[in-house]
Each structure stands twice: as C-alpha cells, then as structure tokens.
C-alpha cells in the first residue's frame, strides 16, 4: 500500500496574511490526490484558505543526533533577543 501511496506532508494557511503551517500527513498516490485528501482530511471545519502538499521524502530534516552543534550555540547568545532597550511609551503594546 505505501509503495503505491507514499507519505505526504500537509501545510495549511488558515487566513490571508498568515504563513502556511504544517498540520499533518497523509498517504496518496500522487500530488493531485494528495491535495484532495488534504482538503478532505484537514479542512473539514473551515480551517484553510490554501493548502500545500509535499512528498515527505522530499523534505531534508536535521539529524536529532546533531542537536548539540545545531542548536546549542544559540542558547548562550541572549543579546540576540530584542530585550536590551527601552520601548518608548508612545509605541504602546508591542
């Protein structure tokens, strides 16, 4: 079954102005059927304005074993957070 219907990842954009977000995966024979299945599986309650599907096999993922070198160096760089200046009162809520 999975040879004929490979895995696809589904991304949905809920509203104009927002980005597509990953919402799940499904099996389908090709991109046309994947898009229809995505519509039927993931937009049943009006969740979407736009749908993307991509073959799971086409996604290059980071290796969990390399988590240390990938992400830890950023943990000690607090100065990258925009929290070291005063926000003028006139700006209001940010």
């Amino acid at each position, binding site marked *: *079954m999975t040879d004929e219907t490979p895995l696809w990842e589904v991304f949905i954009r809920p509203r104009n102005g927002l980005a597509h977000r990953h919402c799940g995966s*499904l099996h389908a024979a090709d991109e046309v059927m994947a898009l*229809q*299945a995505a519509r*039927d599986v993931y937009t049943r309650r009006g969740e979407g304005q736009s749908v993307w599907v991509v073959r799971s096999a086409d996604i290059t993922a980071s290796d969990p074993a390399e988590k240390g070198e990938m992400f830890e160096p950023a943990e000690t760089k607090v100065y990258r957070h925009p929290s070291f200046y005063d926000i003028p009162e006139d700006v209001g809520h940010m």
Partner: protein
Amino acid sequence: MNHREALLTGLLRVADDHLILGHRVSEWCGHAPMLEEDLALPNIALDLLGQARALYTYAGEVEGQGRTEDDLAYLRREREYRNLLLVERPNGDFAHTMLKQLYFSSFMQLWWTAACGSADATIAGISAKAVKESAYHVRHSAEWVIRLGDGTQESAARMAQAVEDLAPYVDEMFAPDDVGSTLAPQMLPDNPALRASWDAQIATVFSEATIEPHVPRASISGGRDGRHGEEMGFLLTELQYMQRSYPGAQW
C-alpha cells in the same frame, strides 16, 4: 397535474436522488480502502444529504400539507420514492462506486448550473450552494476513475466491468421529464438538454483513463415513476429503521 403538483414531483425526484445516493455513499464509512478516502466519502455523502434536506424542506413548503424534510425522507413507501435507478445501485467495488458518482455528479453539476438561473428564487439559492459541492464531487470521482482505468490490469478490468454494468442506467438521467410541460418555463432544468455536455465530459475523462466507451445497451428505467430494483427495499429498511421503530423519535 397542476403547477404545484408538478413542481413538488420535480423537487422530490432530485431530493430522492440525493438522499438515496447519500445513503449509499455513507455505507462506505468505516470500510473505505484507505483512511483518507474514509473521510472523503462521508464528506461527499454529507454534501448529498445536505442538498436533499434543502430540497425536501422546500418540497414540503410547496406541498403545503405540513410535511417536514424528515416526513418526506423517512416516512414514505418504496413506490413513492422517485430517484433514478442509478443511485440506488449497490456500491459494488470501488470502481463501481466512483463511476456511479462520476455519472451522477457530472449530471448534477450541469443540472445545478442550469438551475442557478431558475425563475424560482429558492431553487436558484439552493443551486448556487450545491453547484460548488458537486463540482468537487466530479473532480474527486473523475480523478479516481482516471487512476483506476489507467492503473493496474486489475483496476482497469474492474473499471471496464463497472462501465458495462452501469451502462443501462445512464439514459434515465436524461429522459424527458413529464413535469416539464406543466411547469412554468425556467423553473427546473430540461434534462434532455444536458445530455450533450454530459457525454462530452465523460468522454474526456474516459479518454484520459484509457477506458473504452460503453457499448450502447438497452436502458433500464422506472425509478422516476417509483418502480425500483429489489435492492431498494433493503436500503429503505436500513434508512428508515429509526423512524419506523421509534416514530417521532428526536435527538
């Protein structure tokens, strides 16, 4: 037959098509070949039932006897149902199910499109919503027919069998409607006029699916007059079970 009776009959025919096919499609729930299709098919069934509800509700108003959508859907006898024989056919395999859906939805897409211009505002309103739903049903079923027809040896053989088995039920969709002459012009679409477009649409799908067109066969009809196949009784037994066993039950 006066104008009101003709309109009632015309509405019930289309409503019954949707109720009965909706029930047939719902039989796949929990049995579809894959999870994705197990959601897609009930989606289609729910669209069909929604269209049936709108039509029954309006039919009840036209009749003016106080009958509700539930009375019309659940409390009539077999001979009072006016659906096409095509839609009551048992599901069979997935090829039969999808071909039947393609035949009916392609017909209805043309019908709803024409009915959007109905002189009756309620019919035009129901049609405007339904035409989008049926467009998706055509798209979904056509993609399956193409993939099964142009798929494996097994799927192609099953699709060819479905084409042969359902061939006798095609003509009934386009039979001249005996209520048409009684109705005011532009109330309900003229079914025979939809045939050429339907033939062209199906030919396009069949060509992509590498399916041979069916050999013309003697057509079977009678559904529009309440004469059904033996499977219809079994279908209604299940469909009407709750209201027959617990009359007036609500939840």
